[in-house]
């Protein structure tokens, strides 16, 4: 099993490091055809506008196709924005792999960025979470579970094989959220075998 990390821009090496520490093979995905070599994709933090422009329509189109087939995605911060089905103040979503609405930069400019610990459903009560100019989830569709909240805002959610978080587990040494995602991927791979 190989996990891809979208490598167009952003905190790519941090996700690779977390996955490597869990003993997982990784591939930094910079070209669209590399998506065929991986069984899941992490979309890292970065600047969502920049990542989408760099990737362009060919990348987004392929990601949309994969999403329809139940491909596992994990998006952190900008990655969450790219995966959301609706973005406040923007006419069109990017990939639309999870039925949520997100508000960009909802936690404010950088001076309001912060770190804290959160209770994350199915992961733990004391998960370190770093929020950087973070988006929040403002609407959850049917079939989407909220996994964590911060001051009344949903900051982590899951719909089937798609996981998203406002914060950056990859900036910490805590690997539990990456493990949680790997479980989703493994489960899906087993189903595929059946």
């Amino acid at each position, binding site marked *: 099993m190989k996990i891809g990390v979208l*490598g*167009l*821009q*952003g*905190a*790519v*090496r*941090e996700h690779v490091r977390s996955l490597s520490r869990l003993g997982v093979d990784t591939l930094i995905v*910079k070209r669209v055809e590399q998506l065929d070599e991986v069984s899941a994709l992490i979309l890292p*933090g*970065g*600047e969502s*506008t*920049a990542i989408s*422009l*760099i990737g362009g329509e060919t990348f987004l189109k392929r990601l949309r196709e994969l999403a329809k087939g139940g491909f596992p995605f994990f998006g952190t*911060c*900008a990655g969450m924005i790219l995966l959301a089905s609706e973005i406040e103040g923007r006419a069109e979503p990017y990939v639309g792999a999870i039925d949520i609405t997100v508000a*960009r*930069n909802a936690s*404010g*400019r*950088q*001076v*309001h*960025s*912060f*770190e*804290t610990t959160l209770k994350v459903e199915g992961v733990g009560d004391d998960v370190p979470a*770093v*929020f*950087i*100019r973070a988006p929040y989830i403002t609407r959850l569709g049917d079939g989407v579970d909220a996994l964590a909240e911060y001051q009344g805002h949903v900051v982590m959610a899951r719909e089937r094989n798609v996981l998203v978080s406002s914060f*950056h587990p990859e*900036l*910490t040494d805590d690997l539990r959220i990456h493990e949680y995602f790997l479980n989703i991927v493994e489960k899906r791979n087993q189903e595929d075998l059946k």
Partner: protein
Amino acid sequence: MAEKGTYRVKSGLAEMLKGGVIMDVTTAEQAKIAEAAGAVAVMALERVPADIRAQGGVARMADPGKVKEIQNAVSIPVMAKVRIGHFAEAQVLESLEVDYIDESEVLTPADPQYHIDKWAFTVPFVCGARNLGEAARRIAEGAAMIRTKGEPGTGNVIEAVKHMRLMNEQIRTVIAAPEEEVMSLAKEMGAPYQILRMIRELKRLPVVNFAAGGIATPADAAMMMQLGCDGIFVGSGVFKSGDPEKRARAIVEATTHYDDPMVVARVSEGLGEAMVGISIDEIPPHEMMQVR
């Protein structure tokens, strides 16, 4: 309990900018062009380095009105420059909630001896460096991001290359040195001992290191990325060129696909006039910005 302005939060934003291009802009309109081209952040300033160099006089922090105008125009992070040592300008920019402050040699220094105590701020700082000693001192003062100084406003990449290569060489030396030699290296390089210890442990700088000062073409960006920097600052290179939109986009693509010459070739085609460059030998020593 939530904590703001921790070092992890400060350096974390720089981590998010990796692999991206940060562009100097002087108007809201330019900021929009930069964002639409895929810039990961913009640097708001009154004049680009090439104009500062040409016009002379004292270069200061931008008008707060201009900074706000740029903040309102884009959703990507907005950075702004302060003069070296000018902590009051930094306080002003922090109150405006800029996302990053560049304590920059491009502006006229305000303090001949001391840099700003960057630990005193919630907003993160980026600082320029020519060698590992400068980088390590700025990190010890609280900088959460480093960039090469290069020679700003020249459109000539040679100084950025020199600074990047020197930093790499010095980092290799620190990593390879036996434990008992580290203190001596710290003394020679003028680098705080504890920072060198961190570098040994991480086998790289503890913060992100971008290239800046003279990058004008997609191939310049690709070269700097291959030399191991984490991202690119383009100062005068975009808006002093013949076709800023196209060039901005091309530099962004070349930064992402720096290891793919076919992409760099494709985006380099038909870009129009690059900014007029300056040979470093033609700059009188007292007009060099990097020595500040």
